[in-house]
């Protein structure tokens, strides 16, 4: 029996909802999708609950209508500057007399790593295991191997309780909809854009959103760092609005239709006409001026990223390169600017094969990544234990028919 899963991204500019159907053989079909402009967010955090709820609920409703079904729980993307990541590590001596690593050794190391609690008023959102190290050497599965000491770590991200609670409330307010899991936006988008090979080679995925920029850095196939930079596409729009003295809607339109990440000498001769209203009237703006304003902000953004990552930006450890995704990555020439600032090859990410071309846009990377997690959770082969078994028995089936479960 197929299972319906949902994914919601409460973005700074848009709220997106996807409805997917996980079939018995473990494949995922996207059966509903909708997005609505969101005016209730600033820099990845909810500042107006009602407006955010309006946008999220309307997109959920439309996605459900498109799919012809209802969603009971969703995977929710979590971003915002309140999120902080840290590495939690633990170690254990191999207890066996033969010095063979057992599951209990790993459990002890894991317990030590998880021992540390977050600060008051904060809660863990996401834990990602890092490589297991046996006597200083990274291994995939050390159970049964000979050794003396096992080291194990988690990249753990915690967030502000209030900010997390606000996001959860937006979802549960939709007639008791449940949140199946919280997923970091950066992890969700990078899962879609960087395949296993790239992650093993080492890669940095930069998701340029409207309010914030999410970072996720992989080494040897494992997450080594995640972060959120409080600068996004909206800042570029704001700069254009202030610098060119145009209203934000016009600035946004200029950015999307005529913006470039770095000025081109030929732009100096080109003027862009803004068809204004009766108050401001029509006026022309030099394309070079637009590019200059954007360039300054983009350079600043990548300088912040460079400073944030510091030594992690090691070309030897990031052989997969730097990938740009998110709505901001559509800005022409941005990869060139990024490459100059970060001192490493940067390219725009492409989706892994098998995703419909209409869906495979950079703006959808995060929400598609959420469904990918949903597939991991629900698309287990038959025979394995599944916590979310479909309702059994006559009453369960009857409840399913009328949509109560």
């Amino acid at each position, binding site marked *: 029996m197929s299972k319906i899963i949902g994914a919601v991204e409460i973005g700074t500019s848009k709220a997106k909802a996807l409805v997917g159907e996980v079939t018995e053989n473990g494949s995922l079909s996207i059966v509903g999708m909708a997005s609505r402009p969101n005016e209730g967010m600033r820099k990845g955090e909810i500042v107006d609950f009602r407006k955010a709820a309006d946008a999220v*609920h*309307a997109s959920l409703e439309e996605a459900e209508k498109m799919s012809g079904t209802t969603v009971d729980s969703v995977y929710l993307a979590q971003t915002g500057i309140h999120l902080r990541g840290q590495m939690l590590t633990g170690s254990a001596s191999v207890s066996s007399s033969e010095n063979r690593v057992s599951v209990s050794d790993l459990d002890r190391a894991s317990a030590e790593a998880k021992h540390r609690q977050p600060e008051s008023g904060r809660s863990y959102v996401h834990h990602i*295991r890092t490589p297991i190290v046996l006597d200083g050497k990274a291994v995939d599965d050390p159970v049964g191997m000979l050794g003396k000491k096992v080291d194990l770590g988690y990249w753990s991200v915690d967030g502000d309780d209030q900010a997390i609670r606000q996001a959860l409330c937006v979802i*549960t*307010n939709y007639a*008791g909809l449940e949140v199946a899991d919280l997923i970091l936006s950066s992890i969700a988008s990078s899962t879609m854009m960087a395949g296993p090979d790239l992650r093993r080679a080492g890669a940095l995925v930069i998701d340029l959103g409207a309010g914030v920029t999410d970072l996720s850095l992989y080494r040897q196939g494992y997450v080594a760092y995640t972060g959120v930079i409080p600068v996004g596409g909206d800042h570029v729009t704001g700069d254009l609005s202030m610098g060119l003295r145009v209203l934000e809607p016009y600035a946004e339109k200029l950015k999307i239709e005529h913006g470039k990440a770095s000025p081109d000498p030929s732009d100096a001769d080109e003027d862009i006409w803004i068809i204004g209203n009766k108050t401001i009237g029509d006026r022309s703006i030099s394309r070079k001026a637009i590019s200059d304003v954007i360039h300054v902000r983009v350079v600043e953004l990548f300088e912040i990223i460079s400073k944030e990552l510091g030594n992690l930006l090691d070309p030897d450890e990031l052989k997969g390169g730097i990938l740009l995704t998110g709505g901001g990555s559509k800005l022409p020439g941005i990869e060139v600017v990024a490459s100059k600032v970060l001192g490493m090859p940067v390219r725009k990410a492409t989706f892994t094969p098998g995703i419909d071309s209409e869906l495979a846009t950079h703006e959808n990377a995060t929400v598609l990544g959420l469904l990918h997690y949903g597939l*991991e959770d629900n698309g287990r082969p038959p025979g394995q234990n599944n916590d979310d078994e479909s309702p059994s028995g006559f009453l369960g089936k*009857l409840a399913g028919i009328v949509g109560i479960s």
Partner: protein
Amino acid sequence: MRKNIKKEKTFGSGWKKLAPKSSRRPASRAALRKRLSSVARILFFMFLLGSMGYGVWWIDKLARSDSGPIDLTGPAIPISGVSFHSDGVLSENWFDNWFGPLRGRSLMELDIDEIQEALLAEDQICFARVSRAFPDTLRIEIKERHPILVLRLGAKTGEVQDWLVSPDGTLYQGAGYPRSALSLLPSLSVDSSLLRPKKEGKGYERLEGIPTVAPLLDLVRREYPAIYRDWQVVSYERPNATDPGAHVRVRSGRVRNLRFSPGKFGVQMRRLHYLLLEPDVRKSPVIESIDLSHGRSVFAKI
């Protein structure tokens, strides 16, 4: 081990504890619509369950209930009386004695078809109709056989039993007749071979030949009552009227032996009446015999 990108289950102070236990008032129209839709579905589900439960209960009740007639008349009222109508001598008292007490019984408790069959089993009754006159009256309508002859039989115990004979030949021990009325009836004398006991129950099968005799007795009783009162014993030979030699024999006080042929009793009675008015006959108080069975010729022995 799980894939390296796979999210570990939350440990320590996880976000799940922050999830609100119950949702607040809907914050958007879409949420309100969704909640109303959910409530409607739950109500529909409950209605469906209730309907199924009621259906099961109803079927169970139907299966357990008695398959007899369904009482649609409401609470039963005890029978207050019997409306009894008969064209004969039987009365309501007879019915009360025959049926037994009705006290406390309601109309619907009585099987009127069974009562009707029981009444028809009585040889004195040739028609019966039993019906309910709601709310509390039992209606009985019957028609009786009337006797034209009396058959006196001696039982093995030495007791003598009088059986009444109806025009159709039915033999019955009548009830409700006044003794004076029965004393006027002529007696019947038949060969014992013609009496055949019933296979089931008491009494005898219908007598053959009586339907042949009955018109004579009826004629005499109506038109010649003086002669009828004098008739004492009636008998007949060969019950089938078409048999050669078939005749009816009557013994009376005035004429010791009267003989009629079966049929054309009116002509024969007119001849007898005429003959009895003849001066020579009138002189004789007792006449030995008159034979009217030879058509126009009458043989009299004075």
